[in-house]
């Protein structure tokens, strides 16, 4: 099986789908000729033509707005927002339009669109290249929200997202584009080729939206994570020497509550990780659900390890990023209780 980076896997998914389905179109700022600032669409314009892959004006509301219109026409648009931090000007089109079109028209129209956006920190991007706004999507009925943590999943999930008839927000942890990252910025950079999940089947395959993956089985505590934090969880569990079960959620809505319930019912303890600010982050929803579904199994308070409730600072990036040290402490605390 070919080994791919996250970028290659995403590009391959787009290429496979553009080849298979001529309704798939790809666009965004710098996405056409240049191939995207992260190079995820490189070569697609050359291969599929300028009307299937093109540059757009710098207008996020325009990008999502035309995607909704194209989707209503019958195309399957895949729009790129250059950084998740820049999706706000297009948020109205996502929330008020894409998410509600099927419902309000009782199925006469719908928006089978995918909105890809790089998310998360760890690249010294400061407050406007580091945000993790997933909770702003999970709160909105009608949207699906996906975050892969490795090339294998990225490709399979992106193909599933493109084939999905509902609007899907596809968040790409930019710190993982070129290699897995365990939260230790001081350690040497690891390429994807050393990671088993860089093995990415050729051609078409899907990973169904709404299915989590167990990255490590364990009996002592459940760790819920997604995106970059999956790798941080792995490192921290190793360092803490706890027999943790690590669940990579992969899709936040719809959520694989079965997997969560099964695991926490078994372990009785739960630690939730994300990079986004804590208050009203997706961790709150996870915590509430775990509590509702597994109350009588819980032996210790559920812990949330998250970004702080501040903007993402530039120089203090590693003080903000919820790295392995914090997770280790949380694991210790939850095991003690």
């Amino acid at each position: 099986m070919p080994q791919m980076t996250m970028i290659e896997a995403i590009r391959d998914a787009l290429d496979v789908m553009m080849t298979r389905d001529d309704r798939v179109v790809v666009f965004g700022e710098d996405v056409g000729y240049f191939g995207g600032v992260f190079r995820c669409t490189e070569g697609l314009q050359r291969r599929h033509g300028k009307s299937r892959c093109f540059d757009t004006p710098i207008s996020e509301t325009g990008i999502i707005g035309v995607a909704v219109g194209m989707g209503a026409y019958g195309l399957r648009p895949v729009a790129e927002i250059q950084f998740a931090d820049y999706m706000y000007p297009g948020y109205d089109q996502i929330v008020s339009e894409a998410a509600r079109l099927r419902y309000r028209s009782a199925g006469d129209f719908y928006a089978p669109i995918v909105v890809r956006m790089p998310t998360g920190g760890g690249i010294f991007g400061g407050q406007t290249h580091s945000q993790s706004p997933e909770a702003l999507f999970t709160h909105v009925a009608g949207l699906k929200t996906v975050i892969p943590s490795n090339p294998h999943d990225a490709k399979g999930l992106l193909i599933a997202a493109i084939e999905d008839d509902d609007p899907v927000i596809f968040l790409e942890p930019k710190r993982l584009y070129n290699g897995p990252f365990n939260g230790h910025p001081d350690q040497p950079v690891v390429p994807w080729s050393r990671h088993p999940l860089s093995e990415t089947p050729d051609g078409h395959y899907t990973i169904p939206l709404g299915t989590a993956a167990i990255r490590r089985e364990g009996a002592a505590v459940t760790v819920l994570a997604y995106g970059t934090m999956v790798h941080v969880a792995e490192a921290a569990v190793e360092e803490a020497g706890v027999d943790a079960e690590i669940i990579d959620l992969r899709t936040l809505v719809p959520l694989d509550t079965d997997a969560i319930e099964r695991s926490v019912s078994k372990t009785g303890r739960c630690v939730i990780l994300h990079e986004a600010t804590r208050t009203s982050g997706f961790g709150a929803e996870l915590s509430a659900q775990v509590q509702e579904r597994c109350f009588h199994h819980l032996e210790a308070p559920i812990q949330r390890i998250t970004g702080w409730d501040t903007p993402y600072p530039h120089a203090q990036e590693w003080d903000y990023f919820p790295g392995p040290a914090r997770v280790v402490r949380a694991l210790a605390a939850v095991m003690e209780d």
Partner: protein
Amino acid sequence: MNEIKASERAATPLSLHVPEPAVRPGSKPDFSQVAIPRAGSVRRPDVTVGAHEIHDLAWSIVRVLNRQGEAVGPWAEALDPAFLKAGLRAMMKTRAYDARMMMAQRQGKTSFYMQCTGEEAVACAFETALEKGDMNFPTYRQQGLLIAQDWPLVDMMNQVFSNEADRLKGRQLPVMYTSREAGFFSISGNLATQYIQAVGWAMASAIRGDTRVAAAWIGDGSTAESDFHAALVFASVYRPPVILNIVNNQWAISTSQLIAGGENATFAARAHGYGIPSLRVDGNDYLAVHAAAKWAVERARRNLGATLIEWVTYRAGAHSTSDDPSKYRPREESAAWPLGDPIERLKAHLITIGEWSAERQTQLQAEIDDEVLAAAREAEQHGTLHNGPKPSTSTIFEGVYKDMPRHLREQRQEMGI
């Protein structure tokens, strides 16, 4: 620290300009500042014209019907009287429908209603320029697009009543119709969002090598919204087959078009900075609307790109059933509107050309009133908002997604159904 410091310069103090309509309640209506060119006086360029060559048209008004009820000038065409009579009927039906629904709302049969009284020509005549398969992206004031194509009133009323036969299952606010079949995109409660979607739909048609065109609709007030600009930018760059309609009915709820920037430029002129050809047209003149719409649709169909049209009209009624316009404009303003009433003007034209009479008008009115009443009776059989059959409760969980995810199934259960 934010802090106001006295300026060190000894200059005249600045002041904020807040535009104010010429008159407010209590004063006499005054439209003296509205320049109305003579009917027939504005040239009709070829559809291949460049945007820059017709900048003047954005500062004028294309008009066909003159005060004598004659169709004059380069935009006048030889039209089949049957076509004109159908137009008269569509406009009268729209007005009668509105009147009936306003009444229904007062009777508590629905929660809300929005009429288009005084603006019927815009949507009714525009629709005649489109073909089956084209797609409108309307606002809440384009019911005429449906009525002009004889879309069943009962179906529209079912939506207004949110009854068991409402195709939208009671989910949408009254008047927020949808019909893919009628080329009528789902109306959003959020202003302006449809404008850029129409551009996207038209881009898709171009991408596919199709021949269908889109029509975007927006009100004067809503041109201030972001999606208006996005639409013009994308329409400028990709030249998709779209007609960008602005219905300038002079008001946005309580604020006059001055608050949308109408004091310093026309809305048609907005197109100039994007290199998009634009027209400014008498929106109360059925023939002018038809002619300008055909011109723009032809441009779109011939791959010449977008056209922006400002339809100059007047919102004769209240903004919606929630508002009372006498609070912010003179009651008589509507009657003083210099472009008159679209129904009266088309009727006068038909009489002038010897195709109509006061008697036939009375007869048609009676026919239409009957038709609307019959439709209302039929719709009411299916229920009204607070009475009779309703869409079932459980449908509220359906259609959020194509397939119902687990959390919604759980919530439906929690509701006990």
